[in-house]
Structures are given as C-alpha cells and as structure tokens.
C-alpha cells in the first residue's frame, strides 16, 4: 500500500513536467503580453521593451522555460506581474476559499445525488425515476454561470433570502487563521458568523454542485439497478433480513463503488466550474484570481495556478483510488 502511494506520487513528477511545459506554451500563445496589459494599448515601444527586459521576456523561449522549470523544481512559482507578490503566497490566500466552495458543492452533490439515484432505481420506470431523469438532464445541460445568475436573481435580488456576493458580510469581522471560513467561525466560536458564512456558501455551492449532482444520481441509479439483480441480493433477501438492511448493507455498498470513481473524475470539472461560479458570486477564490491573470496576461500566476490545479486533481484521484480499495476488498494495490 505505502509502496503504491509512493509510486503514484512519483508518477506526479512526469505529469507535472509535461503539464508545466504545455501551460508555458499555451500561456505565451495568448495575444498580447504582460507589458501591454500593464501599460495599456497606447504604450510606447520603448516602455514595453523596458518592461519585457525587466521581466526577462526578451530572452528566447527555451531560456525562459529553463529558468521557469528550475524555479518550479525549487518550489518557486514566481511572482505576479501585477501585485509583485509571490504566486505561492497568493495561492495560499485564495485556495482555501475555492476548496471550501468545492467541498461544499461536492457534499451537496453526493448528499442529494446518491439518495436520488438510489430511490430512482428502486422505483425503476416509475414516476419518480422518470422525473429524476428529466431533472438530471436539465441539471447536466444547464450552463453553470446561467444557473448561478438565475439563482442570484431569484433568491438574492427578488426574495432577498440569501446574500448575493462574497464569503462574509462586509460589516462582520472574523479572524481567519485557516482560510476556511466555516472552520474559522467554529474556531472563534462565533455562531452568528458561522450562519452568515453558510448563507453565503449556499448558492455558489448549489450552482457548482448541480452538474456533479446530476451525474452522480445517474451513475448511482445505473449501478443500483445492476446490483439489485445480483444473486447476492437475492441471498440477502432469502436470509430474511429487513429491507433496510438489504438496501444499505448489500445493495448500496456495492452500488457506490463506481460512484466513488466518478467523484474523483468530477473534481477536475468542479475546479473548472469554480472559475465561473466564483466570478458570478464574486467569490474571492482561485477562480477569480486566475480569470484576472488571464486578462492581465500574468504568466506566473496562470502557470502556477494551472499546475497547482492539476496537482490537486491528481491528488484527489489518488485519494479516491485508495478509498476505492478500502471499499472493494477485491482490489489490493501493491
């Protein structure tokens, strides 16, 4: 098991090297550059060149890449052109916000998707099954930002039930040692702030979690239908176990195996969706940060952010694979 984890972590190295190269090329193929973004379109040729020289952008691309790769290997992601802050510092500030949003969205997707898919399978071809099919198709085909805008309009603007932007009411102060506001509120024992953070989190999490919810519900339904016709479920029923025990212990446990894999694959999607959701809800996370970096051609931020996203996706999938082995005794990693 430990050897397997080590092997998987080691595999990260070539993945990150390849990725850093691709990102480097993509970022530089964007029209314009940081100098023009900084100085505006009417900047003189000389001032642009001066900035580029300052940033080392006048060097040939291979030289630039080697310098970037050497820094990356040393854990140095470079500094933002705009704020002059190290990318790693900014990442540490922004990432908890995105992480909190992504976890909340995933919890929502799993918490609603698994029961929905399970019940749909139990009522196979019934009204509820068909209704959930229609609902999931709508959920999957709805663009995240559009759903977010509608929700914001209805619940924040029209009904005024929920705050429309940010993570915390501006009038409220909360120390945030961890950057995860819910956790920070608990640590500070500030329950009013906790409720406020939760209220801010609700809509972005639902908007972001809708597509994963629909996918998880569909996968759960299909897996449950498969498992329901398995011989071992008949055995469990022949033992005279109650319906609840058969469902939980024998059906759901087996049906969740493919769902776990899907959860891992959804992480990447979730981070992409976070960029859009964060923009709509002015969520101060990695998404808005990267969007600004694209606008400003902030090469170091873009490179650092994307490589970090990739790192997270690979890591989450490793965790998912490991937990899969815990759930499925037929799999043993070595």
């Amino acid at each position, binding site marked *: 098991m430990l050897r397997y984890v080590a092997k998987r972590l080691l595999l990260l190295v070539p993945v990150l090297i390849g990725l850093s190269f691709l990102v480097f090329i993509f970022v530089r193929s964007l029209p314009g550059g940081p100098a023009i973004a900084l100085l505006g379109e009417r900047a003189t040729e000389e001032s642009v060149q001066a900035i580029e020289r300052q940033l080392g952008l006048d060097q040939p691309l291979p030289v630039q890449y080697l310098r970037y790769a050497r820094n990356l290997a040393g854990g140095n992601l470079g500094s933002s052109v705009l704020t002059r802050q190290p990318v790693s510092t900014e990442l540490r500030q922004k990432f908890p916000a995105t992480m909190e949003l992504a976890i909340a969205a995933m919890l929502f997707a799993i918490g609603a998707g698994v029961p929905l898919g399970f019940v749909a399978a139990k009522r196979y071809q019934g009204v509820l099954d068909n209704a959930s099919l229609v609902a999931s198709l709508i959920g999957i085909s709805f663009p995240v930002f559009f759903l977010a805008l509608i929700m914001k309009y209805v619940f924040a603007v029209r009904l005024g039930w929920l705050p429309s932007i940010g993570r915390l009411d501006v009038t409220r102060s909360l120390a945030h040692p961890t950057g995860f506001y819910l956790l920070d509120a608990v640590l500070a024992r500030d329950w009013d702030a906790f409720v406020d953070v939760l209220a801010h989190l609700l809509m972005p999490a639902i908007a972001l979690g809708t597509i994963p919810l629909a996918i998880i519900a569909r996968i759960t339904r299909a897996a449950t239908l498969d498992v329901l016709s398995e011989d071992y479920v008949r055995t469990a029923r022949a*033992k005279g*176990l109650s319906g609840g025990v058969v469902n939980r212990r024998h059906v759901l446990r087996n049906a969740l195996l493919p769902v776990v894999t899907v959860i891992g694959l959804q992480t990447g999607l979730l981070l992409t969706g976070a960029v859009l959701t964060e923009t709509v809800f002015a969520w101060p996370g990695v998404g808005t940060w990267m969007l600004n970096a694209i606008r400003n051609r902030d090469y170091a931020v873009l490179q650092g952010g994307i490589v970090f996203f990739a790192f997270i996706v690979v890591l989450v999938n490793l965790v998912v694979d490991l937990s899969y082995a815990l759930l499925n005794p*037929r799999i043993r990693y070595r």
Partner: protein
Amino acid sequence: MALLEVRDLAVKFATRGKTVHAVNGISFDLEAGQTLGIVGESGCGKSVSSLAMLGILPRPAGRVTGGSVRFDGTDLLGLSDAKLRDIRGNDLAMVFQDPMTSLNPVLTVGRQLTESLRSHLGMSKREARDEAVSLLDRVGINDARSRLRSYPHQFSGGMRQRVMIAMAISCRPKVLIADEPTTALDVTIQAQILDLLRGLVAAEGMALILITHDLGVVAGVCERTNVMYAGRFVETAPTGKLFADPKHPYTVGLLKSVPRLDARRKQRLSPIAGAPRDLTSAPTGCAFAPRCTYATPESWDQLPLLREIAPDHHVACWNPVPEADLVTAGLRPAARGEPA
C-alpha cells in the same frame, strides 16, 4: 399434517406484454426430516416455485397467482412481509446455485454468516462469531476463526458453496431448499457437497428439497423424487421406484440421457428430441406432447392429471411407457440368463 404443504401453487411472470406461465399448479407434502428431489430441465419452474414459497420472487414481474403454501400450519402466501421475514432464513432456508455470485463480494464471510444469527436469533456479536466458527467447522472449513475475516473471492468455488450452506443452516431451519447446489462446481467437489448436505440433513433432522436437473444427484440423496415439466409435476414416486419403474415418457427420456458406466461401449446417449415448451401461452393438452413418441390426439387435447398407477407412484400421462420399451431402452435389465 405435513411440515410443508404446497397446494396448486401457480406463478406467472409478466414480461413485455407477454405472460409466462412458469408454475402451473404444483402440490406436494414434505414431512419433517424428509428429503425430496425436484427434477426437471432448465426453465421448467423448479427454482421459481421455491422462490415463490419464500416470497422472494423477482418483483414486479413475478407473482403468485394461485394456491397455498402452508408451513407448520400457517399459510406463507398470506403473511405480511415482516412475518414472512421471520420465517425466511430462520425456519425455511435456501442454498443457491452459483456460489461465485451468491455471496456479497464486499463483505467478509464472517459478516455474512453472522447477520442472520443476529437478526433471527438475537445473538450478540461475540455469540454470533462463536456460532459462525462452529458452523464453518461443521461444513468442513479448516481454520474457521481466521477464515471469518476472509472475503468470498479468497475462497474456492467448493468452499464458497460450503459457506453458503453454513449460512443457510445457521438458524437450524426445519426445511432447507437447495437449488442446484452442485451445478456450478466440478465433479469431485459435487460429490463432497452432496455428502455434506446428506450428512447435515441426517444430523440436524432437517427436511430437504433438492432442486436439480441431474437425476444422478437425487439418486443418492432423496427419498422421494418429483419430476417437473413445464411448471407441472409429471411423475412423483419414491426415488428407488422412479428409477426402477419410470412411467412418464419424459422421465424415461431423462434417464436415457444420463451417461452410464455400465452401458455398452459406443452406445450413444439419447437426448430428448425438441426444445422445452414455450411457456408464454396457457397449456391446453399435455405440455410434453410435441416431444413425445407416445403422444396420441388425446395428449394434445386434454391435460393429463397426476393419477396413482401403483401404490405411492403418480403419473400425469395418458400413455405411460410400456414395460417392454424400458427393456429396449436399456433402463431395465432383461430377464436373467438372456444376453443384455
């Protein structure tokens, strides 16, 4: 009153606008400690009738459309689901055909063994574990205590079937239904499993219903044998009598298709011609008529009912196989002194 009394049990399946008449009225009695074989080819309704008795037909397709199943005086078909659950796995237990797929792959064998002990007998975790160890011992699994922590995939096929049997007998059922318990196993293991079942039935005083397509299996285990075709019993008799004096053409056909060690060399096995009856229409005449060499117009028109043609020997046939044909078929040794 018999321990288990089945009367006119009928089961239908609804599939895509068609109705499959899977079981068309079977009746039998099973006394405590008795062993009964139910023999027939695939799809004749053997397994479906046992699932119906336990109330675990696949729903919503399958449903019992008539008859009664009385166990110890209570009609199982009229019981609520909760009441039936108390009996199922407790007094009436079942061993299934394929031990590869009938055990839950993600739970340990110990968990699967102890769950009925705990739910039916209210044992504590520790009591159930100890009982599970002794159950595994009894079905011949070595090193039982440590094997409780193993998962099904860590057992061989024969061992898994032993686990299935241990699970089925865990609450000391009064009736054990074994549905093709040896079909998925290779021949040497088959013999071991049958020995085990025979021994357990004798030791525990359980009644056994052994469902199989293999006459060789019932021969060594069952006191009585019912031959089933197209959802009906066509011949019932004590096993010895059935083998010595088969009357229904289908029974004779089954016996002729069993490979025999004492047959002359190069003698071919004779399969039964034709295919099993399509059960999507309600039967009118004898269901076996299309495949039967003895069929007469009467066979096609009228359903033959079981009638006693010798003491304790019932046949549902208008034209039972004559004595002479049994000799030519090689099922009956010719009179002594003549060359075989």
